[in-house]
């Protein structure tokens, strides 16, 4: 490892005056491309539209399979709400795991609204208290909204936004009531 000085234009006088303290090291790491390609390396590597097309077509081929899986997952969500409300910890964990999957994947496969509702559901569960689980109504509304987003993909975005806002208001009201009761 060789040390070398490098003129910095980042901090003017400070750079000229300051020396690197012994407990701070800056290491220049060679690029992976340079290391792997050796003499064949030509910088910079740019995004190749043909490769991008290939990747996007890969996603399209997975879409049909995902749509089928999504439908089954939503049915499972609907089944899990009741046992979750009754205290079944395995059902709760499964419900979160399915929502988490939807949050991460639905948008990639052409179901952005499902992703948004699943995101809202995940955030709700992440801060869920026992009373919220027992009540179950916010969970049910979310699952219904997810089902609706799949069954009616052409829904007016304004309605979707209003549904999301309504869910947010419902969450706030539920938590507000709990605070007052507590």
């Amino acid at each position: 490892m060789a040390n070398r000085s490098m003129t910095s234009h980042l901090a003017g006088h400070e750079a000229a005056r300051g020396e690197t303290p012994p407990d701070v090291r800056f290491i220049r790491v060679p690029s992976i491309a340079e290391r792997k390609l050796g003499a064949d390396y030509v910088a910079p590597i740019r995004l190749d539209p043909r490769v991008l097309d290939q990747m996007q077509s890969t996603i399209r081929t997975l879409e049909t399979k995902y749509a089928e899986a999504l439908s089954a997952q939503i049915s499972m969500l609907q089944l899990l709400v009741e046992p979750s409300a009754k205290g079944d910890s395995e059902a709760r964990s499964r419900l979160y795991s399915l929502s988490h999957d939807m949050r991460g994947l639905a948008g990639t496969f052409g179901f952005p609204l499902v992703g948004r509702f699943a995101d809202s559901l995940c955030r709700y569960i992440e801060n869920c208290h026992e009373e919220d689980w027992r009540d179950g109504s916010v969970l049910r509304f979310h699952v219904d909204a997810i089902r609706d987003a799949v069954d009616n993909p052409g829904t007016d975005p304004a309605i979707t936004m209003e549904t999301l806002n309504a869910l947010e208001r419902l969450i706030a009201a539920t938590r507000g009531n709990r605070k007052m009761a507590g």
Partner: protein
Amino acid sequence: MTESVFGKISVLVVDDSAYMRHLLLTLLQALGVNEIHLAINGEEAWELLNSKEPDIVITDAAMVPGDGFMFAKRLRSLRGRALGMIPIIMVSGHTDLESVERARDIGITEFLSKPISARGLYERLIQVIDRPRTFVETPTYRGPDRRRRDTPFEGTDRRGSIALL
């Protein structure tokens, strides 16, 4: 050229979702990556990291046992080994500022928010393969330089001396 680079790298994918692992696997294959290792959590990833020594890690944030943050922190703690400096791309549905800053402060190289797109993944891979950032070691931080912009700032510039790996 691009294909030949991707054909020569190895990638470790860590995600507890089977769907996400499958999606990342097929996207990487479409890019031409031949050597892909899959792990379902941070613990399994640690084993694979040490046995396969991949060039790049793509990890989810929320996993049990051993989430992506813990795994990345452990990886960055490998001092004296080039493996401790490999690029980490974190894929996460938690896109709030706090999560992104947490990822940055444990030494994540790139952050990719879910839902992912082919372009987003491709661009970040090019970034880490071809445009590496200077690696910084301090008593409290080990990871790529967190300053991405050449803008003036208050205080001492300690980037005057750079070691070459």
